C-alpha cells in the first residue's frame, strides 16, 4: 500500500497554557507522552517537535532579524508538530483528532509532497 507523510501542526494558546494549574499542565504533558507512545506503537510516527524550542527568522527592509521562540503575532501559535506516515488523509485525521492539542486549540493536517 502507498503511504503518505503528513505533518500535524499543533496550534495552541501558549499564554493560556502558562496560566493553567500545575496539575493541568502535568495532565497535558502526560497526555502528550501517551499520544506519542501510541503513535510509536502503531508505527506511524516519523518525526516530532513537541515543545517551543524554535527560532524565528524574518527579513525587514533588507535586514535579517532572528527572534527567539515561535512566530507570535497571533494568539494561537504553532506549539509543536508531529510527522506521521499513514495510508491516507482519513487515517491522518483520526490521529489528529486524538492529539491532546485538538481539544485546546486546533491541529492542522498538511500532506508532505515527496521531492
Amino acid at each position, binding site marked *: 500500500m502507498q503511504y503518505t507523510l503528513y505533518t500535524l501542526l499543533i496550534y495552541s494558546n501558549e499564554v493560556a497554557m502558562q496560566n493553567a494549574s500545575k496539575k493541568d499542565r502535568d*495532565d497535558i504533558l*502526560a*497526555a502528550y*507522552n*501517551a*499520544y*506519542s*507512545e*501510541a*503513535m510509536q*506503537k*502503531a*508505527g506511524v510516527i516519523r518525526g516530532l517537535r513537541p515543545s517551543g524550542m524554535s527560532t524565528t527568522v524574518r527579513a525587514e527592509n533588507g535586514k535579517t532579524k532572528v527572534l527567539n521562540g515561535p512566530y507570535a503575532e497571533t494568539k494561537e501559535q504553532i506549539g509543536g508538530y508531529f510527522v506521521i506516515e499513514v495510508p491516507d*488523509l*482519513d487515517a491522518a*485525521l*483520526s490521529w489528529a*483528532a*486524538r492529539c*491532546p492539542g*485538538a*481539544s485546546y486549540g486546533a491541529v492542522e493536517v498538511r500532506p508532505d509532497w515527496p521531492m
Partner: protein
Amino acid sequence: MPQEGDEQAHLTAERVARGNYGKLVAFLVARTRDVAGAEDALSEAFAAALESWPGSGVPTNPEAWLIAVARRKLVDAARRRRAGDEAGPQIQLMAEELQAAANVDTDIPDDRLALMFACAHPAIDAGVRAPLILQTILGFDAATVASAFLVAPATMGQRLVRAKAKIRQAGIPFRVPDGADLADRLDAVLEAIYATFSEGWTDPAGTESRRRDLAEEGIWLGRLAVSLLPNEPEALGLLALMLHAEARRAARRDQAGDYVPLTAQDPATWNGRLIDEAERQLLRASKLTAIGRFQLEAAIQSAHVVRRRTGKADWVAIERLYAALAAITDSPVVTINRAIAIAETQGATSGLNVLATLADDPRLIDYQPYWAARAELLSRAGEAIEADKAYQLAIGLEPDPAVRRFLQRRRERNLPG
C-alpha cells in the same frame, strides 16, 4: 422590516424542508434515478418558494407546489443537457410521469425507504452509505457530513458525487427488496442509520450541536424505518438500542464535565421515559421471534439498566448475550466486551484470558477500548506494571479529553507516584 408574510413563508419552507425534504428527494429520484439532479432541482424550488410565498401566500399544499417547481427545473435541466439530441421523447416521458404522480393531490407517495435501500446498496462503498443517507434523506451538506465522519470536506464531497453517479450509471434500483434479499439489504440500511446515531452519540458533552443533532437524526431515521417496516424485528431492535443509549446521554458526564463510566452512573440521571420506550420496542421485536445483532445489543442495554430497579446490573445475562453476539458477528469489539463481562462474573484473570485471544489482531494496535479494557483488568488482577503500559496507550489513543482525564486518574490510582 420583514413582513409577517415573509416570516410565515420562511417558517413553512423550513418546516417542509426539515420534515419532508427526504420525501421530496425520494419522490423525484424514484422517477428520474438522478440523485444529484433531484437535489439541485429541489434546492432551486425551495429558493423559488422563499421568493414567491411572501407575496402570493403559502400554497395550500406546499409539498405539491415544491414538487411541481422542482419537476419543471428537472425537465429544463434535462433539456439543456440534451440540447440538439433526439432525447425529446424520453424527457417527455419523465415529465409526464412526474406530472401524473404529482397530480395525486392528497399526499405524495413516500419513497424514502426505497431511497435508503438504494443508498445502502451493496454496489455502494460501505463507508459512504450513511453519509449518502444523511445527505439525501436529511438534506445535510457535504461539509456537515464530512465533519461528522471526520473526513476532509473535499474528500467527502467527491465520495458523495461518485456514489450518486454510480446509482445512476449502474442502474441501482429504487425499491424495497423482498424475500431473502430484504434481510441482507435491511442490515446495510440499519447499519447506516446506526452509524449516523453513533457519530452523534460520541460527542458526550454535547458541545458540538451538529453531532448532537446526528444522534437525534439517527433516532428519527430509526423511527422512520420502524414505521415503514413495522414487522422487522431488527429495525425494532435498532430503535430500542438507540433509545437506550440516548436515555443515558447526559449521565456520561458529572457536574464538573468529567467522564462517568456506565457502571458508576446514578440511575436517577437516566431518562426513564426513553428506557421504557426502548423496552416496549424490544418486547415487540422479541414477539417476532427472529433474533439478530441489534436486538442482542439492545437486550444487553436492558440488562445494564435493570440496575435502576434491582440495584445491580445482570452480568450473567450480559455475558451470555455477548457470547451470542460473538457467535453471529465475529467482531473483536464484541470479544472485548465479553471479556469485561466475564471479568465481572468469573474474575479479572478469566477476562484477561479472553482478551489474550485478540493479542495478535493488528486492528487493535490503535483501538482505544482494547487497551482501556486490558489496563482495567490487569490492574484488577494486580499486574500494576503491565496495566500502567496499557493505560498509557489507551490515553494516547483517546480523542475525548474527559475520557483521557478519567483514564489518567485510573492510571494514577493503579500505580501511584
